[in-house]
């Protein structure tokens, strides 16, 4: 067996760590108790005794009604939050009846393109009862939740949950919508500002480093790119006159959990320390809540294999364990069938049970940061902190993040990561069981394969529903709401969310809302269709 002498992100590692390797460590300055600055050891004094991490798995398939059934089953199985993912048209801000969407509606997530979709999705699920997390376009999610709260007479201030905010890198990875980047930044900033006022318990700003990590980024790149994006949005909000303490405590980071066990634990700890110092000393946050970073984790999808599927359950368990030992606030396990599809209920249940077994059987929740003080882990935590900060400085030294994104700078980082990972698997420096080592013939490799192969058909019912919506709505009310939205978009000091809510209530679709906002940012044609036809 070859001996690995660096971590996954290339940090050279000695065979053993001793007290002198952490001679620099000052307990009060660098660690602090859990619940105290700089929160390296966790954000709550008693950690999981006080607040168990939120346990959830991803859901979204078929129609909003079908996904509603799935959510109810998962809640009945003991899930403590819901986690919804939009289908691929939704993630690209397209309606279910868009010509390019017809091959994918409801197959890789749930379609959410009008207020009715959100209404059906959340029927019977209390808005203030469980944490509602979303991988879907943030401005639409927040506008729809605020509309539903109004309809149900619920207090929007009591809505908990989160939504990903991904303006900078979405074009380069798998959530492209081809809208102008300045418009994406505007929607991101307005969403955070609106929530700071009206949904104070909702994390409208989840810095999503997960989907970009899925191309093969290492832990240092993941931290650095996440920080660059978060800092760009924070600076834009500050420039708009929004005070740091009004929104900073509702920023959360969504990170991956790779198979490099200790490096991943160190990563979560390093990020909390970076964040606390950055918020207090650089951005001048006064409220201690702004210094405490909420971290949520989705275990790595790219670490799973299409061969020997049961091994993926093992991978998910180790990765989730790293997230828990790293003191994270919510953990989702990537289900064993995800190399093939969004999870089946069977696979999602195994993923949920993985978390419940860690919580109920392993006993690791008894003590906060149980690995704190380990010579090796403290060494790694500092290495990751320093390397990530150095990369942030390097990137920010090259220019404004928005301009860098437009110039293809980040796309290059992603493309290099893809090539690097492929080469490491091909030449064997990165062992992947069942792929480049310990392989099995297809005849033997049958366990769980039936589950993974069940397929979802395109939801024609949903496509028809959206077409019907266009026929039955009031065209005058719709035109009025959309023209008001256009006017609002042309006024950069106005917040777009109330005008989007008005449009959604008039049964405008996501594409129509997007088009109205885009009128202030240049192209009038549908940027995806223009390219495809």
């Amino acid at each position: 067996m070859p001996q690995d002498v660096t971590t996954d992100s290339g940090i050279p590692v000695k065979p053993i760590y001793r007290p002198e390797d952490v001679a620099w460590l000052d307990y009060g300055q660098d660690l602090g108790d859990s619940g105290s600055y700089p929160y390296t050891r966790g954000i709550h004094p008693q950690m999981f005794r006080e607040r168990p991490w939120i346990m959830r798995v991803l859901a979204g398939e078929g129609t909003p009604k079908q996904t509603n059934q799935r959510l109810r089953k998962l809640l009945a199985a003991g899930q403590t939050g819901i986690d919804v993912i939009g289908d691929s048209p939704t993630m690209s801000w397209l309606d279910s009846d868009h010509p390019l969407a017809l091959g994918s509606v409801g197959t890789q997530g749930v379609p959410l393109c009008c207020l009715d979709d959100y209404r059906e999705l959340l029927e019977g699920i209390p808005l203030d009862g469980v944490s509602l997390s979303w991988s879907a376009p943030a401005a639409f999610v927040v506008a729809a939740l605020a509309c539903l709260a109004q309809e149900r007479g619920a207090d929007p201030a009591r809505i908990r949950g989160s939504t990903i905010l991904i303006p900078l890198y979405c074009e380069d990875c798998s959530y492209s919508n081809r809208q102008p980047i300045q418009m994406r930044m505007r929607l991101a900033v307005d969403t955070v500002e609106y929530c700071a006022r009206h949904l104070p318990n909702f994390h409208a700003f989840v810095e999503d480093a997960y989907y970009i990590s899925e191309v093969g980024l290492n832990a240092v790149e993941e931290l650095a790119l996440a920080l660059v994006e978060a800092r760009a949005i924070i600076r834009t909000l500050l420039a708009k006159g929004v005070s740091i303490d009004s929104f900073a405590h509702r920023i959360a980071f969504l990170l991956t959990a790779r198979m490099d066990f200790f490096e991943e634990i160190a990563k979560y700890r390093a990020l909390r320390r970076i964040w606390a110092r950055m918020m207090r000393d650089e951005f001048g946050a006064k409220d201690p809540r702004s210094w405490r970073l909420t971290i949520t984790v989705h275990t790595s999808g790219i670490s799973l294999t299409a061969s020997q599927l049961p091994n993926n359950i093992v991978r998910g368990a180790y990765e989730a364990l790293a997230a828990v030992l790293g003191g994270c606030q919510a953990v989702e396990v990537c289900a064993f069938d995800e190399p093939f599809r969004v999870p089946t209920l069977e696979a999602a249940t195994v993923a949920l049970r993985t978390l419940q077994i860690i919580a109920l059987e392993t006993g690791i929740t008894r003590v906060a940061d149980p690995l704190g003080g380990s010579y090796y882990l403290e060494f790694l935590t500092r290495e990751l902190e320093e390397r990530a900060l150095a990369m942030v400085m390097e990137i920010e030294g090259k220019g404004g993040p928005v301009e860098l994104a437009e110039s293809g700078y980040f796309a290059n980082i992603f493309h290099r990561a893809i090539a690097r990972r492929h080469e490491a698997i091909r030449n064997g420096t990165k062992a992947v069981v069942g792929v480049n080592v310990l392989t099995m013939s297809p005849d033997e490799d049958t366990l769980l394969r039936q589950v993974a192969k069940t397929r979802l058909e395109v939801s024609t019912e949903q496509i028809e529903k959206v077409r019907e919506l266009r026929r039955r709505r009031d065209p005058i009310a719709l035109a009025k709401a959309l023209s008001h939205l256009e006017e609002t978009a042309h006024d950069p000091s106005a917040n777009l969310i109330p005008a989007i809510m008005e449009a959604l209530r008039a049964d405008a679709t996501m594409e129509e809302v997007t088009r109205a906002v885009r009128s202030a940012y240049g192209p009038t044609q549908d940027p995806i269709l223009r390219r495809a036809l």
Partner: protein
Amino acid sequence: MRVLISLLGMDQHEVGALTVAGILRDAGYEVLYLGRFQTPQSIIRAALEEDAQVIGISCYSWDFRLFLPQLMEGLKAEGLKVPVVVGGGILSEEDERWLRALGVRGVFRAGSTPEQILSFFASLDRSGQRRGRPTR
């Protein structure tokens, strides 16, 4: 040999497509990377304009179930005899049979190696040379 690489419909997972494009480029093929958000029409148009000799489709979603038959039909209607190759980790054995019945020349499922892909392209290249370049 000029190889066009594309995704179909809303499929946005480019890791596989970019990896295979890199493998082919490193082996000396001329790769035209068309990328995401393509339809049968846009692929056929690019194949005509760029004189592609192979069309490679990457699948990490099920969009191909709708769009691939349309692509094969469209190529036939244009009289374009360009071989189509499909690759993707989500493809099952049934998908492979279905794709081959549609006239797809090569199917690469999970576990395919770069060597297998390259040797298939080399065989396409040889047969292409024997009967002359497959242009219109």
